[in-house]
C-alpha cells in the first residue's frame, strides 16, 4: 500500500515526501478542494523533483466539467503528456474520456466521491481503461474489503483527513455575503466552519473555491488501527492535509510510516483535532424520507 499526500507549498516538498510514496497536486482551473493551486510551471517543477526522488506524482483535476471545460482541460493536459506523471485524478466520466484522448489512457484515476459503493460499480470503470478508482467514503470496512479483494483496477481511498461531504457548484459564501451586503473576504480561506443550530459542538469545515462550495466532516478520518488489513488490498492511501499545513502532513506521514501512537496523540493535541474511523464500523440507515433527486 502506497501513501500519497497533498502539498501546500512547494518549498516543503522534500519534507512532506520524506515518509510517503507520492504527492497529489493540482490547479484550481480544473481541480477543486486543493490545498494549494499551483501554476503550470510549479506543477512541472514539482513533477520533476518528485520524480527525481523516485516518488509518484498525481495531478488533481476533480471538477465536474461542462463541454467547454473539457475542451480546455484537454489542451491543458497536453503540456503534461510527456511528463513523468503517475496519474490524473478526475471526478467526471467525461474527464476520463478526455484524458484518454490526450495520452493518459491507463493513467487516469476516477474519484466519484460517493458512487463506488460495491465491487461491481467499482470495477465497471475498467471499461474506460482507468488506472484506479476511489472507493466511496461512506461505506463500511467490510464493504471496502469486499471491493479490495475483488478489484480489477488499483484501489484508492482517503485514509486521513477531513472527508468532503457536500459539493455545490454555487458560490454559497459569496451569496451569503451578498445577502449581508458585505464585501466577500472568504473565497479560498481554509479556516471557516459551519455550526448547525442543533449541533453546536460540531464545527464543519467549509471551503468556497472557484469550482463551488464544499462542506467537510468535523472529525479527521484516520486508519492507523487498520494498516495491516488495508495493506492486504488497498493500493493507495491518501493523506489529505486540506485545512492543515505541510508540517502537519510531514508529521502524519511519519506517524503512519512508523505506526507511532505517541506521535498521533501529539498531532491531535497540537492541531486540536478529534479523529475517528469514518464509516468503517457505521452502517447508514436508508429507509427514511428521501429528498428530491
Amino acid at each position: 500500500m502506497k501513501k500519497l499526500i497533498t502539498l501546500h507549498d512547494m518549498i516543503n516538498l522534500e519534507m512532506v515526501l520524506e515518509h510517503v510514496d507520492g504527492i497529489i497536486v493540482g490547479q484550481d482551473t480544473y481541480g477543486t478542494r486543493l490545498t494549494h493551486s499551483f501554476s503550470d510551471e510549479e506543477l512541472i517543477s514539482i513533477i520533476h523533483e518528485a520524480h527525481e526522488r523516485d516518488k509518484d506524482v498525481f495531478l488533481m483535476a476533480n471538477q465536474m466539467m461542462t463541454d467547454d471545460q473539457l475542451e480546455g482541460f484537454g489542451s491543458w493536459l497536453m503540456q503534461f503528456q510527456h511528463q513523468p506523471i503517475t496519474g490524473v485524478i478526475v471526478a467526471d466520466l467525461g474527464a476520463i474520456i478526455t484524458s484518454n484522448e490526450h495520452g493518459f489512457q491507463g493513467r487516469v484515476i476516477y474519484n466519484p466521491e460517493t458512487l463506488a459503493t460495491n465491487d461491481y460499480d467499482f470495477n465497471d470503470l475498467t471499461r474506460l481503461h482507468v488506472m484506479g478508482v476511489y472507493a466511496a467514503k461512506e461505506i463500511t470496512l467490510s464493504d471496502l474489503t469486499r471491493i479490495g479483494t475483488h478489484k480489477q483496477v488499483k484501489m484508492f481511498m482517503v485514509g486521513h483527513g477531513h472527508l468532503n461531504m457536500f459539493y455545490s457548484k454555487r458560490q454559497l459564501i459569496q451569496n451569503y455575503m451578498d445577502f449581508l451586503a458585505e464585501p466577500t473576504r472568504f473565497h479560498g480561506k481554509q479556516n471557516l466552519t459551519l455550526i448547525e443550530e442543533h449541533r453546536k459542538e460540531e464545527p464543519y469545515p467549509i471551503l468556497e473555491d472557484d469550482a463551488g462550495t464544499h462542506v467537510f466532516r468535523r472529525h479527521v478520518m484516520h486508519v492507523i488501527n487498520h494498516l495491516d488489513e488495508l495493506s492486504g488490498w488497498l493500493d493507495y492511501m491518501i493523506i489529505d492535509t486540506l485545512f492543515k499545513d505541510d508540517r502537519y502532513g510531514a508529521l502524519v506521514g511519519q506517524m503512519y510510516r512508523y505506526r507511532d501512537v505517541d506521535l498521533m496523540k501529539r498531532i491531535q493535541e497540537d492541531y486540536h483535532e478529534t479523529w475517528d474511523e469514518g464509516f468503517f464500523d457505521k452502517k447508514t440507515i436508508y429507509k427514511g424520507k428521501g429528498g428530491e433527486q
Partner: protein
Amino acid sequence: MIELLAPAGDLEKLKIALMYGADAVFVGGQQFSLRARASNFTLDDLQEATSFAHARGKKVYVTTNIIPHHEDMHDLIEYLKALEERHVDAIISASPYIIDMALKHTTLEVHLSTQQSTTNAKTVNYWYGRGIKRVVLARELDKHQIKQIRTKTEADLEVFIHGGMCMSFSGRCSLSNNMTDRDANRGGCAHSCRWNYDLMDGETKVSDVPFSMSSKDLEALEQIPYLIDAGVSSLKIEGRMKSLHYIATVVATYRKLIDDYMKHHEITDFAPYMKELEKAENRLASHGYLEGLPGVEQQLYNARSERPTQLFIGLVLDYNQESGIATIEQRNHFTEGEAVEIFHPNGHVEPFIIHEMMDENHQRLDVARHPRQILKIKVPFVVEPYAMLRKR
C-alpha cells in the same frame, strides 16, 4: 413531441398527473428506489398504473436509482423482470450494476438518473453507447450548455423544470449520512442542506443572520420555449411528496404553456402561467442554473419557501348528470354560499356559487368541516371525476 414528465407518490397522484396533462409519470417502487418507503408502489400498483397510463397513450417510469451497497444487491434481477412483466416503460437508474442487469436480463428501457450528475456530451454519449436511451442531465447546466449537448448526441435528454433542488451535485452529497446516519443515496436524505448554520471565521461568527445553503425552488416557465427549441426530449417536474392539487396545477400549467408554444411558436406574456402556478403552492421560485450560476437572489435565508395555499377544497369523485349533483371529497374547510370554481383536468376553470350542499346521507350542511368527508353539491355544469373544487 416533447414529453411533460410528472412525479407521482401514489396511484391517485399518478392518475391526477396523467389526467391533467402529463405525458409520463415517474414513480418509486418498493425496492431499489430513493423513496424506499412503505407507501411506494407495489407491483400490483404498478400493474394498475401502467394499465391506466397505457390506456391513455401515456407512460410510467420506475425509479431504481439507489447507489447500492453490497447488501442491497439481492433480488434485483427478479425485481427488474417483475417490472418488465408489468409493462413499465422505463427504469431510471444510476448504478452501473442496476443498469447492466436491466439491459442484460430484460427489455426495459433505461434512463440514466441525475444521481450520476451528467454535465457534458462525452458522458452522455458514453452512457448512450452502453444502451442507455435517455440521460437526465445535471441541474448544474445552463440552457445554452444543454443546447450544446443536444447538438452532440443522439441520446434523449431530460431536464428538470420545476420543484425542489438538491444543493449539491446530485449523488455526491453525504451531509445526511454524516449528520444523521441516513444514507442520501439510499433514500434517507434528511435535507441537512436546508438547515440553518452559523458561518464561523476562525472563532468569530460572521453574522447573526443564519447561513443557509438552501435554494428557492426551480421554476422554468420562461425557459420552456428555449428548451423545446433546443431539442430536449423530456421536461421533468419534481415532487413525489406533493399534494394532489399541487400536481394537478403544476402539470396543467406547464401542459398549457407547452401546447400554447407549440401552437403559436411564441409566448408573449408568462404572467398568466405564473399566476396559475401560485394557486398550487405559493413558493419562492428561481431559474436554478438555467440562466447561469445562481446568485444571492436565488438563495433562501432565514425563510421558509413553502406557503401552502388553502385554495383546494374538494376532489370530485362522481357527477350525476340527471340531478346535477357532484359527489365531492372534502379537502379543506368551506361553507355554503362561497364563491368557488371547478378546476377541470383539461386545465379549464369554471366558477359557481355553492347554493346547495349535503352529506352523503343527504342531510343539509352549511359547512364542510371534516377532512375527507363525502359531500353532495349541486354544480351547474358537467364535471368529471378528478376535477378539483377550489376557492376563488
